[in-house]
């Protein structure tokens, strides 16, 4: 099968975290990394992804705003996982919050993140298999 692995886009402005997430997810997923949410919007609209893992605090826009912007450009929207050091700042009513499948508070357990991405990734791959009506 050409695409037996979930396709994951990781967005984080910290190069160290970005690289480590690429390593963490890279063994089981097709990972594309992006260090700016603006570029990530471009990348996500040009090629399809099953899961997007994004940081919350980034320059130009927050992770939630990024998810919101994505949901306006892309249907179905890829499943978004948000990583944040300040989970209290993420409110249920803020724009984009409904697009977030999961909010993970930092410091997160790498094992947990990996399992989460794989599970959600499977959902995404199933959805991909059925062409959108």
């Amino acid at each position, binding site marked *: 099968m050409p695409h037996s692995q979930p396709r994951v886009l990781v967005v984080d402005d910290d190069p160290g975290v970005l690289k480590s997430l690429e390593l963490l997810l890279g*063994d089981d997923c097709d990972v594309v990394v992006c260090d700016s949410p603006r570029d990530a919007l471009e990348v996500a609209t040009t090629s399809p992804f099953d899961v997007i893992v994004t940081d919350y605090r980034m320059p130009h826009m927050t992770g939630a705003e990024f998810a919101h912007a994505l949901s306006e450009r892309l249907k179905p929207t890829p499943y978004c996982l948000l990583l944040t050091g300040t989970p209290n700042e993420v409110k249920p009513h803020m724009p984009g919050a409904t697009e977030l499948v999961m909010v993970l508070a930092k*410091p997160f357990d790498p094992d947990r993140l990996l399992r989460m991405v794989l599970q959600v990734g499977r959902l995404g791959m199933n959805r991909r298999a059925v062409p959108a009506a």
Partner: protein
Amino acid sequence: MIRNPEQAALARALLAERLFNAKRTHLVRLVGVLFFAGLFVTLGVVQGDRAWATDYGSLATYLGLAAGCVAVAAKSDRFGAWLTLAPALLDMPFIYLVQRGQYATTPSPAAVAGFSLGIFSLLLAIAALSSTRWQLWASAGSAAVWEVLLQAEAQVSVGARVAAVVILGLTAFMLVYASDRRASLLVQTSRREKLAALGQLSAGVGHDLRNPLAAIANAIFVLRRRLQKADALSEKVEEPLQLAEREVAACQRIVTELLDYARETPLELQPVDVKALLEECAGLVRLPANVTLKLEVPDGLPQAPGERDRLRQVFVNLMQNGAEAIPPERPGTVTVTAAAVARELRVVVRDDGIGMDAETRARVFEPLFTTKKDGTGLGLAIVESLVKQHGGRLTLETAKGQGAAFTVALAR
């Protein structure tokens, strides 16, 4: 005496302030004495008013000594520290001499004695600016003795003498109370400043460290998985790997606690069911095998306004602390009780562990103070700050060997 660096610094600051006040006081005294000497000389000698005739010898001596005090206090702090006693040792006897000198010519010695009571009270207030507790009481004693002598010689009634002593005593008491209160406010202010500085510092450091730590934790995890897949997880590799995992987790815990401490976002209060919350907390405590955790929480407690996650942090912290206060070689119990008292909801977390001595007790809420080998010294500081943010009170009853009881009182 409990001495810690914070208190020592405070004592130094208080001494410096006392010396400074003493120097100013000596100047004021000199001006006051000059004024009265001028008055006596003008009215008594120049105008020939016999009511102002006095013992000019002691007045001149007094003036000289007052000027001496100013000179010595300006030159040497060591003598200056002793000269804070000048009002008690110099002023009061000389006022006695000067006032008594008027008895020969004044129409009413009793009035002079009554007037002196006012001067003595004023001197006491001036002395309070530069006196320690015992110095102030000594000044009050000295004032009482000279005043009673003046009144006795003026043949004032015994009742009035007793009243004068009581007035001086009460004045001294209020002055001591005021200066104690001021010192304790200073302690609080200096602690608050320390906390604020720590908060800013830790927020900065914490944010900067969190991302690198996350990257390291991820990298270690990847390393473990790849080794596992390659079937290369021998004991030789396992040991350093575990060490790295454990230490990264410790760093992350410290950073999380620092950031919790520095948290600036305001609380979002909602009614909290305390019984359910305490049951949840009990499940989150890591209990050693020798420790029993007992929840004695009645049904039907009123709800308390609070932020659930933060209150959970408070109670888990207190219970964990209680469990850790029990030495591993004997069984022990942590008991949690809750009750609605007056307008408060009081939760008491009591352990029968090792307790704390007075010194630990005094510093236990101070950030970065810890008696644990691997503690950050932030747990109880965070608990206290969270309880305060809820508008509640946190109190502690403990003695060495007697266990400890923390009471969280929340407004309901």
